[in-house]
């Protein structure tokens, strides 16, 4: 019974001191003087806003990526006790005392520091020597651009950390595969691969590239397993399912969970509300929800409504009319109907109210019980304040002459009859008898006489239309477009028979009692879609660059400048490392091609296992560089040097691989080997020298003008020199 006591409890610990020392050095290099400068540095001005909004639980939309990265930064703020009260308005602004600078910057810095042991481990798992692994770790340690990027409240270092973690865990998993499939460690590393991938994607969409690369490599490895006749079909299926579960299902679930946390945390309405649909806005606390709570759900004849255009571009707006008429002649000489203007107005206004009227009846109040409007019903829309009917006719619209003018009809007693019947088409209906619902239904208004569709053209009217947005009847309605779809936002059942009473009623706020809740999936789909499709004005930034500039580091980014002394921080790489990394990539490619062609002719220059190592190292390092770099040539967004850092990390890992390969296989004699080693020492000291030279602009040490001028090694670098 007490048999387990027969053996002593033994703990054998194996500590790789290399790793420990590297980690400590990494921590020192990244964390040293972390709260200096106590001022907003570069994109902190951007991410800081989001951190503040998290602290205040206010909803926002950031089109740059998914929420995990922002949430991690916010976690730092939360741990440091940040209350979110800081105005993030310009780069260089001093932080007030309530901002916990150190803890806000801590997580990115920690992630940056941990990249160093990860790099070491990756090389070890790729089965290169510990010496090569040490080299890789040291190169990452001494890379100025990675240091700069980790030391502030920015996302790249976190992204790189997750990318490297994913690669490392996949390699660990793959190395375990050979002897111990389905063991605990095997599952752990496989699972960690999936988790790290989803975290990488969750921080920035760039993580997707590495995720795809790992999926491709996993697919390739599985393909090789298929050829292994020793494995039974059943075990292959198990392998396949295990990979599918951990590399596809779990990452997707994790990704959803990020959004779940994001949406749970942010429940208050805020500055970006109007980007979202009315239904989404109504689900947030405050804002629209305050107005729409308790509105009747079903639109009935006699309902008073405001109609919001679903597109929300160029800005959210509501169908609007006012007493002014279209000018008889436009500037370009075309004529108009001179009837009352109908526009789309981006602000709440009493003139946004419309009444749904049954063409067959005169009354403008809701009967008891209310008669709901259904899909396909024909209605008239009466403008609440002016009691004119929404109308369109075969007159060219003011700015879009191919479409029809939309007006509120004034009977001038000329041969222009009223054409004010509209058919209600619910776009997102479930059946053809659906009732038109407040907020939820997306509706098209099809003109009965001309089958034109009520549409927001996106153009803004000249002075006579008060710069409001033009609304037209689109004759050739080519398919579905959100600019033709409207939804009811505010809604109440009209009770006043008389116009005077009705005006008072229109001015009064709506009643409320119930709230409408969207399901998580509906919210997620909408938010995700907005993130992907939202486009900021892509004007060029002062420090933006093109992807081609990155290889040669022809560009830099000034992150921060001390207001009085010459101290400044730049994103600037270690020149020596960047050049060597490029050379390594070229050497790798040429050597691989050479080997490949020779092998095709059955000439084997290096032993088979060395070749396999060489190939798998290339898959990861060159592959990682390619997938993280080349897609930028196809992108049309504003690009910055820091987008290159993930690719650069992979390229740096390639340097020791190539060096070890050269020394193992090409330096045959002892003499050449020692020559090679001497060269490596010389080269490495130049890397250290470059690091030392540029460390003042990495850490922001004060420099004199002459010293700054000396640092400008390339003309294209933008080092800020104060005029005397």
């Amino acid at each position, binding site marked *: 019974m007490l048999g387990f006591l027969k053996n002593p409890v033994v703990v054998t610990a194996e500590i790789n001191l290399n790793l420990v020392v590297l980690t400590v050095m990494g921590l020192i290099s990244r964390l040293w003087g972390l709260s200096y400068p106590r001022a907003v540095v570069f994109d902190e001005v951007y991410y800081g806003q989001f951190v503040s909004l998290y602290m205040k639980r206010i909803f926002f939309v950031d089109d740059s990526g998914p929420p995990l990265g922002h949430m991690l930064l916010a976690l730092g703020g939360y741990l440091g006790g940040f209350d979110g009260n800081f105005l993030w308005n310009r780069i260089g602004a001093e932080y007030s005392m309530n901002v916990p600078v150190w803890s806000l910057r801590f997580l990115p810095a920690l992630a940056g520091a941990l990249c160093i042991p990860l790099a070491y481990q990756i090389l070890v798992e790729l089965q290169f020597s510990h010496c090569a692994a040490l080299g890789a770790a040291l190169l990452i340690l001494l890379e100025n651009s990675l240091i700069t990027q980790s030391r502030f409240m920015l996302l790249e270092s976190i992204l790189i950390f997750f990318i490297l973690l994913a690669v490392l865990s996949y390699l660990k998993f793959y190395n375990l595969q050979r002897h111990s499939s389905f063991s605990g460690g095997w599952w752990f590393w496989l699972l960690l691969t999936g988790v790290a991938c989803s975290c990488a994607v969750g921080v920035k969409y760039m993580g997707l590239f590495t995720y795809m690369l790992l999926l491709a490599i996993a697919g390739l490895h599985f*393909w090789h397993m*298929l*050829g292994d*006749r020793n494995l039974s*079909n059943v075990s292959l299926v198990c392998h396949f399912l295990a990979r599918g579960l951990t590399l596809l299902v779990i990452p997707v679930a994790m990704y959803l969970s990020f959004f779940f946390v994001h949406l749970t945390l942010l429940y208050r309405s805020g500055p970006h509300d109007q980007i979202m649909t009315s239904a989404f806005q109504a689900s947030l606390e405050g804002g629209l929800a305050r107005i729409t709570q308790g509105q009747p759900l079903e639109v009935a004849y006699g309902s008073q409504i405001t109609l919001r255009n679903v*597109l929300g*571009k*160029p800005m959210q707006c509501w169908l609007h009319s006012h007493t002014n008429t279209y000018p008889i002649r436009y500037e370009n000489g075309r004529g108009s109907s001179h009837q009352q203007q109908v526009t789309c107005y981006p602000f709440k206004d009493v003139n946004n109210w419309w009444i749904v009227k049954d063409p067959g009846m005169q009354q403008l109040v809701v009967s008891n019980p209310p008669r709901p409007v259904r899909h396909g019903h024909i209605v008239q829309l009466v403008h609440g304040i002016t009691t004119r009917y929404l109308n369109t006719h075969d007159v060219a619209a003011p700015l879009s002459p191919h479409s029809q003018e939309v007006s509120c009809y004034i009977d001038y007693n000329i041969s222009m009859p009223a054409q004010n019947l509209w058919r209600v088409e619910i776009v997102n209906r479930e059946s053809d008898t659906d009732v038109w619902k407040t907020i939820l239904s997306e509706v098209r208004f099809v003109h009965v006489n001309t089958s034109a569709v009520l549409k*927001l*053209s*996106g153009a803004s009217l000249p002075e006579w239309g008060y710069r409001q947005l033009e609304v037209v009847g689109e004759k*050739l309605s*080519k*398919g*579905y*477009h959100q*600019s033709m779809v409207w939804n009811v936002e505010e809604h109440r059942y009209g009770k006043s028979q008389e116009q005077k009473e009705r005006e008072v009623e229109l001015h009064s706020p709506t009643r409320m009692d119930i709230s409408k809740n969207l399901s998580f999936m509906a919210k997620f789909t909408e938010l995700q879609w907005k993130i992907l499709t939202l486009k900021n004005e892509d*004007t*060029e*930034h*002062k420090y933006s660059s093109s992807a081609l500039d990155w290889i040669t580091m022809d560009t830099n980014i000034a992150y921060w400048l001390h207001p009085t002394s010459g101290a400044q921080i730049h994103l600037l790489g270690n020149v020596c490392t960047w050049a060597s990394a490029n050379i390594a990539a070229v050497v790798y490619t040429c050597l691989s091609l050479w080997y490949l*062609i020779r092998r*095709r*002719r*059955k000439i084997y220059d290096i032993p088979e296992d060395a070749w396999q190592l060489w190939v798998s190292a290339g898959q990861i390092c060159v592959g990682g560089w390619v997938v993280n770099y080349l897609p930028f040539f*196809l992108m*049309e967004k504003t690009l910055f040097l820091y987008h290159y850092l993930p690719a650069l990390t992979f390229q740096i890992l390639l340097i020791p691989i190539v060096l070890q390969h050269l020394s193992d296989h090409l330096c045959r004699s002892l003499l050449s080997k020692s020559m090679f080693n001497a060269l490596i020492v010389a080269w490495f000291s130049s890397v250290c020298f470059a690091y030392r030279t540029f460390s003042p602009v990495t850490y922001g040490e004060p420099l004199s003008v002459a010293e700054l001028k000396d640092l400008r090694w390339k*003309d*294209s670098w933008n080092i800020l020199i104060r005029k005397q």
Partner: protein
Amino acid sequence: MPAAGGGRAGSGPLRQRGTRRLQGAPPASALSPRPPAGWRAALGLVTLLSFASRFHRLPEPPHVCWDETHFGKMGSYYINRTFFFDVHPPLGKMLIGLAGYLSGYDGTFPFQKPGDRYEQHNYMGMRGFCAFLGSCLVPFAYLTVLELSKSLPAALLTAFILIFDTGCITLSQYILLDPILMFFLMGAVLSMVKCNSCADRPFSASWWLWLSLTGVNLAGAMGVKFVGLFVVLLVGLNTIYDLWDLLGDLNLSLVMFGKHFLARVLCLILLPLTLYMAMFAVHFAVLNKSGPGDGFFSSAFQSQLIGNNLHNVSIPEHLAYGSVVTMKNLRMAGGYLHSHWHLYPEGVGARQQQVTAYLHKDLNNLWIIKKHDSNTADLSDSSSPVEFVRHGDIIRLEHKETSRNLHSHQHEAPLTRKHFQVTGYGINGTGDSNDFWRIEVVGRRTGKLIKVLRSKIRLMHVATGCILGSTGKTLPKWGWEQVEVTCTPYVKETPNSLWNFEDHINPKLPNISLDVLKPSFAEILLESHMVMIRGNSGLKPKDNEVTSKPWHWPINYQGLRFSGVNETDYRVYLLGNPVVWWLNLFTIGLYLLIAISTAVALKRGVQLTSEHKELSRVVLCGGGQVALGWLLHYLPFFMMGRVLYFHHYFPAMLFSSMLTGITWDTLLKFFSQFLSPSTKARRVYGVGILALILLIMYSFYLFHPLSYGMIGPMASDPSSPMAGLRWMDSWEF
């Protein structure tokens, strides 16, 4: 002559080497079936049907349809020899022009807008030519599939799909580039496949023939539209695979391999390049008169066009104060320095008058050169002596129409934030010291005179030291989509910041005839490509505009109106035969499934019968090539920023149809083999193929009015012939 001599024909890229020894042996093995009997008769039949369907009602409607307005017009330009600019390379339009010329069209019809009646003008030659090329697609596809699958039913199925697809018919019946493009594209694929099947007889006459034909067709495809690049890619990948295979064959000496390599370089790179350049040479030789496209090109280029103001130009040679000039940017497709009354909008630098670069000739491009410190050098004052502008002088440029000075200051430029904004400033030529520019000629010393057209000059802003340049970025709507002009603080010698004087008016100076430096052919070629690429990337969709998305295409989501809108019009609507297209779409999924299971089965070492081996070879090699073609002609559109249209999918649709033929044939064969070896098996197989063909023919019967014209009420009306056929709400007929 496909598969001449039998032998080991029809091998795809995965063929096994070493069968070379089979050469001359009787083609008895199951791996190398001879072409099925009756393929010639079937070829005749499909060709006949194809021509009949494309030429049926070809003259209808007798008015300009859709893009005929562009390509017909460009054909006329060739007949009239007027220079124009288009975003596509010239071959397609040249062929249209040639067809028109040969058929007696005189180039006088203006092709102003769709719907214009042709009246007495002879348009049938051009339409007939396009229809002829469009008809050839069917036999080409037939032969390609026959070669890949060695199965007559597969080839017939493909041919019938294409014959009875309303989309392919409509697209072939008008004066468009697409039939021409697809002709060369399919030609290239056919010759590539034929050449692959000649691989066991390298360097034979037929091998050389097909290899060089591939090259010729590639040049043709590239010469019609840049989309031809995708087929170049397809052939390129195939060639690389082929060479890789040859390299692995140790029986082949390196010398032989070198020969193979050189033969491909010769036929697939050098030959097409030569032809492509020859096409441009003809293009420039034919179009020798000035026309609407002049302004897109450099001064040197324009001087070659008869009727251009630079042709045999006679202007004052040296620049003097008081001269009225235009300045052209030296960047490829750079414009004229331009200004107009409109101001920069709020928030974009200072609210002063816009200065842009503009590609068209315009009065607003005129500037007057004045001394920086005086306004005296007026043209009206005839007594004052002429004073020449010299290198290094400080000048002021006054815009002639608005009398504002070219001005710059330390505000950010509208798009390129690192540069300074350039504006028009001052009233009637009175401004401030920010209007002063130092004029410098590249590579000259102080005091030298400045020559019109020949001197490359730059303007340095005196106050800030920046240089006037054009960045090539298109301004948003407020800038009328003209090109941004900035003052760059980076003093680099790039064409962006260099200018030349083009027009020069100064009545006090004698006009001298100038021979402008003639550009070499290579320069012209490069320049016209830059202009085309810029033109292509400029075709951006506008805000709030409903555009066609690539994912719409395979599901036949929405067509294009070719002619007619209203009930009384003769309406033609470009839309694929929905049955065919949905069959194609379904088949792509089916093919993926089949291909993956086949590949896995092979990898797992499942024992296959020889019939199954042959089937898997057809699926993986033949089908693989075609599927790759589909991918290459479809996926890139997802990454394109320009405006896309439904008809861009048709090249991919050709591949998709071939894939359908191959896949269904293989699938039916595979299932019928379960029932073998009775005659029942053959019957099931035959009935299956026949059912598919009949289905396609019936659907064509239903939808044929889409191509051959609909008159009368719209489909929503129950009395219309198309009533009940509007299966999707997005179809507009």
